């Protein structure tokens, strides 16, 4: 391998034979160095603790929209008014969630994605290596906009084939946005080349699916939670707070690990 002061070949020319032989070193040593460089660069650019905490906080902040006391009359009112404005983002307003949930998630998801873009841009400026997070952001944005627009298109244009895309019971509890976050995290794990984030994203996806299809309150009841008559509106909260807790704990852990690596 040549030293720093080895003369360079003229532009467009390959190095001479003496330079070529000087460039040859122990292949195993060179491979080991490159592996180390790749690992250091990867560790330096890991910054996924922020989106984990951010989306954990956004899920926690959505909790008030899942507490509702309208009961069946709200459902009747919505159905009479000509359908559901955004069921993929907002569930079935009046039945289990607030009618404003869809608006909250439309704004929260887009704002979360924007903050994530700014975060990775800031990290790249500070550390000097940029994570290719663009695909994760685009995935999240496209899914959010599709979830917002497809029901409206389906209703307005009577496009019947769109019904084939209906995700069934996944929208009942208004937790479909949790799965949009899952998709974004899975793509981000690939962009970050992080096995840890991939595991976190898979665990979170599992929890988000359970929260979408099952009343987690049943587990809370078995564990001894016994809500009073005035607290029944709160029983949907475990379905919201458990996925949020997964993201917050994982984000906190990732923050500590990434800070330790930087200071090392």
């Amino acid at each position, binding site marked *: 391998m040549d030293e720093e002061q080895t003369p360079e070949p003229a532009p467009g020319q390959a190095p001479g034979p003496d330079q070529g032989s000087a460039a040859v070193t122990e292949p195993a040593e060179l491979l080991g160095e490159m592996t180390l460089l790749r690992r250091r*660069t990867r560790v330096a650019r890991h910054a996924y603790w922020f989106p984990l905490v951010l989306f954990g906080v956004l899920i926690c902040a959505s909790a008030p929209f899942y507490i509702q006391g309208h009961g069946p009359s709200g459902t009747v009112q919505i159905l009479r008014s000509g359908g559901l404005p955004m069921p993929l983002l907002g569930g079935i307003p009046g039945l289990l969630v607030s009618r404003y949930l869809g608006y909250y998630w439309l704004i929260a998801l887009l704002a979360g994605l924007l903050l994530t873009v700014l975060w990775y841009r800031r990290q790249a400026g500070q550390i000097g290596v940029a994570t290719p997070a663009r695909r994760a952001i685009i995935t999240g944005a496209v899914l959010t906009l599709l979830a917002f627009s497809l029901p409206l298109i389906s209703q307005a244009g009577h496009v019947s084939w769109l019904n084939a895309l209906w995700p069934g019971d996944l929208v009942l509890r208004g937790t479909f946005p949790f799965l949009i976050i899952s998709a974004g995290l899975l793509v981000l794990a690939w962009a970050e080349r992080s096995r840890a984030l991939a595991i976190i994203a898979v665990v979170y996806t599992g929890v988000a699916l359970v929260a979408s299809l099952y009343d987690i309150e049943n587990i809370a009841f078995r564990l001894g939670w016994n809500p009073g008559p005035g607290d029944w509106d709160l029983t949907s909260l475990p379905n919201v707070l458990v996925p949020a807790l997964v993201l917050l704990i994982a984000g906190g852990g990732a923050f500590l690990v990434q800070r330790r690596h930087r200071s090392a």
Partner: protein
Amino acid sequence: MSQTGELHPTSGIDERVHQRHRLGILTITAEAQRAEFGYLRDALGLTAGNLSRHLTVLEEAGMVLVEKGYAGRRPRTWVRITGQGRAALAVELGALTELVRRHKQSAAGGI
């Protein structure tokens, strides 16, 4: 060419890549969307002048793109690997891996 007619692993090596620091530049930029000049300099333990010379070689070979910009008022130089650079890096790492494999094989054979 070996006795069996098989090409030697080094036959596909590009001499512009087969250099520790330039290989390091390609390795780092392949790992990130782009890398800043200062990061490359520190990670590779080079002076700014030497890093510039290595970048010029890689840029002229079409293996990296050098982009200049600003972060606030501070000028920044970013380096991005191209498809050609990724291909050259893959060939180089493949050749090195094959060399290591052959070396281990011959060592195991008691040669």
